């Protein structure tokens, strides 16, 4: 999966247009009803999706499309119900382990035939691995985004700091920020997953991509010394007081004002954090991005790049139209359009698409295509099985508040590992 991603991203960096007209049979006669369920409930993505569906409908005027936008958090629990009873024809979801329960229960349609078409198979090679279970593909990606440290450029300039390239610089920067009366990082762990991001990066940098994936697959005990090393590194930051106080009370959005007001200098987040930071009044001169620096120089850099996806439920009524819709979504032109700065502001999945000229998208794309040689992970709660992910993130939150509890946390995670796998 990773070598494919690297290869295709490299290909994308050098070739101009490769995808070509993916809509080869786009004008085949489609009719009937097409029911689409979306979890893109935030205003900007919602408008993007509705516009995209309208453009698809314009190509197929005989199709009666019914769109249902569900709140993103509520969607995560509702999907179980609507996949088993009264399924839509197309539904959004997430790649990797997050889709495994539905694949194994036979609720997602096998769409390997779409990838058999070289025009799609090659254009989507970068995300094919994340959508593959048992050598079959179960959906298509429509967007993905980088993770990394978003920081207040003006504060760094004021203190004379530069983007760190290794762990020592990272900590020295943090100490300088702390000495100036600010916190190094804002974070809100109320909904747990933000702590998963920190664990991902610390573990990827300490032990490398392959070890991280072995841990995700349950092949390494949580009490392993290498895992402890990751936590030891994390603890250095905690003991310095690098994170804002009371982070367990905040959601990720509620943690944003600390950065906006300059009380915290950085935020380890996905690229979706840029839009609210800009909305809050920060200009691009004030925010910048750097890749999480190396900790162990012997391991290759690896990144989190979560992928959001479209699937066809197994019980869909109009699978022909659903397949045509999926093809339309991943077509090069549509990918360029929906991922540009005015729409999702993320990275396109089609190798033939172009990345919008945006400070953060450019940096993210360059990072993923050139400096993520170790591999690309999805995210903690998408790579690890649901139960392990939940317990793990809860443990991370506890560790961030009470680092002395590490032994009991790891023992607990180890017991859960023994049961889950």
């Amino acid at each position, binding site marked *: 999966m990773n070598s494919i991603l690297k290869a295709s991203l490299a290909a994308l960096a050098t070739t101009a247009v490769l995808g070509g007209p993916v809509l080869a049979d786009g004008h085949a006669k489609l009719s009937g009803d097409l029911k689409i369920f979306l979890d893109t409930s935030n205003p900007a993505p919602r408008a993007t999706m509705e516009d995209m569906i309208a453009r698809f409908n314009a190509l197929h005027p005989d199709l009666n499309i019914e769109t249902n936008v569900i709140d993103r958090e509520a969607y995560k629990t509702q999907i*179980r119900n609507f*996949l088993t009873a009264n399924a839509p024809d197309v539904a959004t979801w997430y790649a990797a382990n997050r889709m495994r329960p*539905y694949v194994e229960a036979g609720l997602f349609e096998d769409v390997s035939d779409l990838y058999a078409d070289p025009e799609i198979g090659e254009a989507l090679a970068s995300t094919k691995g994340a959508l593959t279970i048992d050598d079959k593909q179960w959906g298509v990606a429509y967007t993905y985004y980088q993770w990394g440290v978003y920081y207040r450029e003006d504060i760094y300039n004021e203190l004379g700091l530069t983007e760190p390239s290794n762990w020592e610089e990272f900590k020295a920067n943090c100490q300088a920020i702390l000495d100036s009366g600010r916190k190094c990082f804002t974070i809100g*762990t109320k909904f747990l997953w933000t702590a998963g991001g920190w664990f991902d990066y610390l573990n990827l940098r300490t032990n490398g991509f392959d070890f991280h994936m072995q841990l995700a697959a349950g092949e390494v005990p949580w009490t392993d010394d290498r895992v402890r090393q990751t936590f030891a590194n994390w603890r250095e930051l905690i003991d310095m007081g690098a994170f804002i106080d*009371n982070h367990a*009370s905040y959601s990720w959005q509620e943690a944003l004002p600390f950065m906006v007001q300059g009380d915290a200098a950085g935020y380890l987040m996905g690229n979706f954090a840029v839009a609210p930071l800009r909305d809050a009044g920060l200009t691009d001169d004030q925010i910048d991005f750097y890749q999480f620096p190396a900790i162990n120089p012997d391991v290759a850099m690896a990144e989190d790049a979560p992928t959001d996806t479209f699937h066809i439920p197994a019980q869909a009524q109009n699978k022909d139209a659903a397949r045509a819709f999926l093809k339309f979504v991943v077509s090069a032109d549509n990918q360029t359009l929906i991922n540009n700065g005015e729409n999702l502001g993320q990275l396109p999945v089609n190798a033939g698409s172009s990345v919008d000229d945006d400070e953060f998208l450019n940096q993210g794309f360059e990072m993923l295509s050139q400096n993520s040689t170790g591999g690309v992970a999805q995210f903690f709660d998408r790579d690890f099985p649901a139960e392990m992910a*939940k317990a793990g993130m809860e*443990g991370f939150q*506890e560790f961030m*508040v009470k680092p002395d509890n590490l032994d009991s946390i790891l023992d607990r995670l180890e017991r859960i590992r023994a049961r889950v796998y």
Partner: protein
Amino acid sequence: MADAALPAAGLAPPPRSWWKRNQQTLAPWLFLAPGAAFFLLYVIFPIFQSFQVSFYQWDGLGEAEFVGLRNYDELRYDDAFYTSLWNNVIWLVLYLAAIPAGLFIALFLNQKVFAIRLYKSLFFFPFVISQVVVALVFSWFYDPTFGLFNEFIGIFGLGPVAVLGDERYVTLGIIVAGLWPQTAYCMILYLTGLNAVDPEQIEAGRLDGAKGWKMLWYVVLPQLKPATFIAFVVTVIGALRSFDLISVMTNGGPFGESRVLAFYMFEVALSEYGFRMGYGAAIAVILFMIMMVYIAFFLWKMYRDEKEG
């Protein structure tokens, strides 16, 4: 007059239909039938289904696998389960504070001054608004950086305390939020109860020199016994189903320290990462057993009162 009725009586009386004969006995059952049917379908049947599911390992999607008592065995070693159980106990005990609080507000409001109805409805207001709104209001109140609570304790040189982010205070903080509407509920129960207090007995007590606490304890409270009973029942039930406040205010956190059994059951079985229907059902069964203790007590008490009455 009697003559007029005679011709009809001369004929054999028409046989009354089965329906006519049994109408009196059947009518109540017919009226009860829809309610009873739904109660069976949505309450009784799921109880037995929960018992059944608790013996399986099932992700809610695929095949269920019979595992016998393994889910219960696992509960014995589950720290999170004990945390939830302990929190349930705290909820049960502290939530009862709503009863005396409601009583005293009711006594306070049981007077005839201008616009007393307005004051009563203002005190009743928190019970009318949604629990979700109560939860949101209190989570802003507790906010460690800009919440009123920390401004307030700051006056005394205390804080800041992240009530909802600190595992020592989080359950107490949520219970206080829950007491706000629950006190209003108990208050309204006592207000209606106070209307039924016999003024003659009050007068008689007064003549005998009772006042203040003695009057309350020996004369008023015994007459409020039915209201106290109902207040006790609804408060215990309210404590056991404390779910929405926890879900909105902390989502069970920090690190699961504010969970109660109902929330933990939801989390393992139905939430974002929950795929363990069997384990969730096992927790539900335990919660049901605890509730059974109360239900049995209430049934027994009601039966006894009926016999006496």
